[in-house]
């Protein structure tokens, strides 16, 4: 009986093909394979838990500004400029004229004011609402295309959190959302956005979009997408994805390992490959509330026990490099490696020295039990489970780390969790160690370490068991908080800011709540059989990751062969 059920499910999994709408000719359709399944395919409200923007919703919910990491520039889009007031306690945003919502209504300052006020009124339920409520004391329209925002106190980097961050709150149409309860509104089946496509159909397997001939940027910016249809489908097993790309049955994919993309590129000469640096390093998170991991020395012992070169081999087949900092080595970050050279030599997370790890433990009074496993002076046996999500590279890292820890006398094991339970365990701080990524809210760590460090301010430390977005590990250090508070009021180019940032970074390195073990690279494969104009290493006009809102620029650049 059990065998029959299993065989039936196997057969279904093998035979299942994504649904392709019959009225979407292949040569007119750009096919993008999303990296995650669409858990709630009828949810197009980006402010609710469970929303998956990879359906294409991120691309249609256009932002005021986009941070272009490869160009190091801010791209104005629905907004044209923003400016801080003299004391950095206010921001004035100018909006672009001529922008229209997909239902023909004009996009203007009222929509922006409504969106931020909606978030303030619905904190903490809606995503981004906590920060907006905390910092925006007043939002008002100065004229139809100018928005004034009063901050509660001077903040020189407030724009990271809601204007240029890689994921920021999208502006919603007031004339629709004001009639709805934003905490339950699905924004479906006809989501109104300013983006270039309208939703045609959505299911758990596939989402299809059709180009809007009345897209505002066609006349205002001279921008128009080349593909008439968009088909976004969920991922499949690695073998299946490789076959689909080899047979040109999909155009955009991201996630092959080195050996996989080498095979695909070899067998399909229309595939373009860009192995690009990802803004989130691969990190090991500690539960610093669980003894003895609450001791920084023990966390450093773990760091020395981990062979990072082996991690690189396990997770990325050796394609990437080990990391000294939990930040991506973009041109915005690499100067810090030189500025903080001494500090990073003192606190060297790249170093692999198992003898030193053992020495640290034994200096702390740990002794091996009869089973060869270390026991703390308090009698706690070192038995740790390392959790990881099921993404490529993560589970291999968890296994590799567990092997390294076993080698020094820790009863380490690893467990792969599905995305939902993994995310829940992470937010509730319910794990021993967690292999995940190091991303600040808005991914600001890609250009300013402040964005990452600020996320460990104790004001975000919720009681154990509560679901937290910031400071998930509940790090608390008044000295560190004071430095971050001071930084918040200093301009990034103020000489004092460099000094304070270095001090905060040194405390972070000393306490090591999260190790940024490896720089992350992501392989992006594009099929040029039907389409050209994808971003590449030679022409990195935008970051290549299709699950980001920035994929909008790829849509606007891609044209038929």
């Amino acid at each position, binding site marked *: 009986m059990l065998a029959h059920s299993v065989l039936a499910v196997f057969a279904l999994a093998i035979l299942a093909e994504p649904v392709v709408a019959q009225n979407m000719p292949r040569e007119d359709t750009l096919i993008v394979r999303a990296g995650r399944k669409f858990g709630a395919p009828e949810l197009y409200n980006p402010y609710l838990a469970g929303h998956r923007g990879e359906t294409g919703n991120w691309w249609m919910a256009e932002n005021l500004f986009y941070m272009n990491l490869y160009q190091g520039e801010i791209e104005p889009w629905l907004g044209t400029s923003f400016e801080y007031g003299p004391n950095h306690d206010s921001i004035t945003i100018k909006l672009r004229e001529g922008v229209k919502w997909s239902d023909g209504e004009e996009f203007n300052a009222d929509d922006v004011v409504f969106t931020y006020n909606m978030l303030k009124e619905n904190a903490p339920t809606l995503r981004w609402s906590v920060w907006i409520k905390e910092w925006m004391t007043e939002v008002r329209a100065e004229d139809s295309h100018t928005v004034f925002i009063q901050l509660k106190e001077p903040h020189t980097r407030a724009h990271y959190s809601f204007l240029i961050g890689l994921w920021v709150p999208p502006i919603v149409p007031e004339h629709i959302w004001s009639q709805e309860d934003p905490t339950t509104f699905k924004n479906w089946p006809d989501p109104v956005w300013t983006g270039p496509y309208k939703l045609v159909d959505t299911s758990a397997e596939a989402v299809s979009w059709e180009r809007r001939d009345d897209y505002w940027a066609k006349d205002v910016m001279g921008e128009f997408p080349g593909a008439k249809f968009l088909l976004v489908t969920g991922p499949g*097993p690695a073998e299946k994805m490789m076959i689909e790309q080899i047979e040109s049955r999909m155009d955009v994919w991201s996630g092959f390992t080195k050996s996989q993309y080498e095979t695909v590129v070899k067998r399909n000469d229309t595939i373009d490959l860009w192995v690009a640096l990802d803004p989130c390093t691969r990190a090991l998170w500690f539960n610093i509330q669980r003894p003895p991991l609450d001791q920084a020395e023990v966390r450093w012992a773990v760091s020395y026990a981990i062979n990072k070169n082996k991690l690189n081999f396990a997770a990325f087949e050796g394609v990437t490099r080990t990391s000294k900092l939990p930040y991506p080595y973009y041109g915005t970050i690499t100067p810090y490696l030189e500025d903080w050279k001494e500090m990073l030599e003192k606190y060297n997370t790249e170093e692999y020295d198992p003898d030193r790890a053992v020495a640290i433990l034994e200096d702390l009074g740990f002794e091996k039990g009869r089973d060869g496993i270390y026991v703390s002076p308090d009698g706690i046996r070192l038995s740790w489970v390392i959790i990881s999500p099921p993404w490529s590279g993560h589970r291999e890292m968890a296994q590799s780390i567990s092997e390294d820890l076993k080698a020094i006398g820790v009863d380490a094991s690893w467990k792969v969790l599905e995305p939902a339970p993994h995310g829940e365990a992470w937010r509730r701080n319910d794990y021993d160690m967690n292999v995940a990524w190091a991303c600040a809210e808005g991914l600001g760590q890609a250009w300013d370490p402040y964005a990452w460090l600020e996320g460990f301010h104790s004001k975000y430390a919720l009681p154990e068991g509560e679901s937290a977005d910031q400071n998930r590990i509940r790090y608390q250090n008044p000295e560190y908080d004071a430095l971050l508070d001071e930084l918040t009021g200093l301009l990034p180019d103020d000489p004092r800011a460099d000094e304070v940032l270095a001090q905060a970074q040194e405390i972070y390195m000393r306490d090591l709540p999260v190790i940024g073990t490896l720089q992350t690279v992501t392989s992006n494969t594009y099929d040029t059989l039907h389409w050209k104009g994808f971003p590449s290493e030679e022409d990195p006009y935008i970051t290549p990751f299709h699950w980001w809102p920035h994929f909008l620029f790829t849509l606007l650049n891609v044209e038929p062969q």
Partner: protein
Amino acid sequence: MTASLASSAKEVFNFVFRRNAKLTTGFVIIFVLVLIAVIADLLAPYDVASIGLHGPDLPPSFQNLLGTDTLGRDVFDQLVHAVRQSLIIGFFTGLVGLVVGLSVGIFSGYRGGLVDDSLRSVTDVFLVIPTIPLLVVLSSYVRFLTIPALVLILAVFAWPFPARTFRSQVLSLRKREFINLAKLSGMSDMKIVFREILPNMLPYVGTTFANSVSGAILAEVFLEILGLGPQNTTTLGVMVYWAMWRGAMIRGILWWVLPPMIILVLIFIGLQLINIGLDEVYNPRVRKGGSTPA
């Protein structure tokens, strides 16, 4: 018809090796695999799951008999340990399912009445539970899935079908003359069950056990392919999972993907041959010539 358990088993054993080629072949296949499982530590004394012990994707050679995988692990070493773990999962799940199913089936069928109605209802409820989705949910929410935990989870769903099968057999047997005779002679219910009913159900016990073992091994492979099994331990499912995850088939790393699949096929063929052989031994309708050993 008052054969004891021991004599019945002896008859089956003799019949296997003298009369039924399928049963013999099945037993030989399973015996060889069990032997590999037992001496796995002698065949592969290393920590087989360790990453980077060898070079990646090396084809078979004298040093690495079945080559290595992309993570630099010896495939032969993994395989012999995987056979052990998968057989353990199959055997113990099958055993738990069999013991529970047999107990429920016999008690329900022999007692009849309200007991039968109640147990049959419980069994029916378990039979209609969508097993696979529930396994997926259970596996993903167990904090740390070990082999014993997996066996328990699988066993929860391994007993109802045997229970229904055994109940039907008991319902049929309890109306037979030799059972009435046993009752009239004052034999206790326990003695009737163990001396009269159980020996007559041995072939069903064998086939049910073989089916349960197959189902458990297949379910483990399924969970592993979803990434939900106990991945700390190398099983055949884990090997298939890693090979699939890294695209071994399409990359032509056949020495990685084929060995666990071949072993899985051998396990199923072995168990099915035992299944068919037992059926031929005890079911005159499917037997070509010969008579029942009893």
